[in-house]
Every structure is written in C-alpha cells, then in structure tokens.
C-alpha cells in the first residue's frame, strides 16, 4: 500500500509541477489567461528588472521546456535541473517578500514539490557526488552523448 502511495504520489507531483510550469510558460506567450497579479514588494522590483533584461522571457522558455519534460515523462532528471533556477527564484522572491499568504503558500508548495521530485530521481544525480573527479571532455568522444540516450 505504502509503495503504491509513494509511486502515485511521485506521479501526481510530477504531473502537477509539469502542468503548472508548462501552462504558466505557454500563457506568457499565448495569453489565454491574464498574467498573475504582481503585488508591490521588493520581489516585484526584481521581476520588473528581470523583464527589462529579458530574463523573465528566458525563464518562461525554460518553464515550457522543463514542464513539457515532466508532463511527457521524457528526460525528467534534466527537466528538473532546467526548472530548478526558475523554481528557486520564484520561491526566493515570493516566499520572503510577498504580502499575500496565498502566494507564499503556493510558491513554497512548488519548491517543496520540486525537492520531492529531485529526491525521487536521486539515482540520476548520485554520479555527481564524486569527491575527486577527472575531466573527460565531450569533444574527445562526442558519441557518448547519444550512447547515453
């Protein structure tokens, strides 16, 4: 029973985070819903500056790519890494600065979901936990890329 809850819990979290980010990213370019209300806060200044720098648009592209990878269950560990900067930034600028409890709750939940997924797919990240490493450049044997598929 516990194994089923664990398995389908991870499935739910993957689809939730994927759907949230995929639709959030697409909505920025297609505008089928109004953009989220931005409150006056220090975090809002950060959003405004990132829009002027084009970082916000870039983040939305990452949301589409990462969200699609989670929803379609393809390259999920890579999708989680792509989405991580977006999730962390949204969490940091809202959880500590937003005047709205709903936004604080929502961004914190997404951050927790992201951490749960990283933990669920941890076996793909263990190779990064090597203490002493030797570079093995991709240009010496590019075929390793498609061998990894």
């Amino acid at each position: 029973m516990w194994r089923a809850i664990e398995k389908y819990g991870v499935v739910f979290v993957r689809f939730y985070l994927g759907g949230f980010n995929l639709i959030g990213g697409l909505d920025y370019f297609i505008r089928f819903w109004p953009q989220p209300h931005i409150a006056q806060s220090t975090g809002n200044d950060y959003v405004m500056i990132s829009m002027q720098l084009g970082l916000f648009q870039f983040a939305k592209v990452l949301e589409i790519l990462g969200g699609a990878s989670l929803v379609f269950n393809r390259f999920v560990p890579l999708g989680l890494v792509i989405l991580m900067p977006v999730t962390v930034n949204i969490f940091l600028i809202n959880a500590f600065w937003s005047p709205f409890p709903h936004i604080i709750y929502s961004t914190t939940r997404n951050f927790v979901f992201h951490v749960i997924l990283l933990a669920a797919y941890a076996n793909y990240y263990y190779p990064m936990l090597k203490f002493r490493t030797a570079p093995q450049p991709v240009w010496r044997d590019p075929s390793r890329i498609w061998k990894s598929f």
Partner: protein
Amino acid sequence: MITFNFAIDGVVDMMSINPLEMSNFEATGAIFGVAGVILTLLWNHYVAPRKQQLPHVFIAQETEEDALD
C-alpha cells in the same frame, strides 16, 4: 490576515491558504496531477510494462579512457 476561506467565485482570495482556493495555474497543475495519476493507473493496468532506463553506469575502462589526467 491569513484566512482559510474557499469559494468557487472565479476570484482567488490572496489571503487564503486553503489548498482548494486555486489560481488558474494551480488548478491546471491539480487537473494535470489527477489526470496523470488516473492515466498512469490505466496505463499500468492495460499496457505491458516497458523497460525504463536507469542511470548510465560507467565501467572503470570507460572512466579512465579520454580522461585529462
């Protein structure tokens, strides 16, 4: 003031931390999540399990060749 209000009125109460009080994006996430679980349940029931890819494990020779030091 934090509340636990919930109403189906098409407006998000920004002061509410009720999980059912959802924005469009949160509702989309919830719909995707529930639909995903149902689809996965049906998929596991009706479709033969396919082999999934576990992380690539490098053997010693593979790790040593082409290494810079």
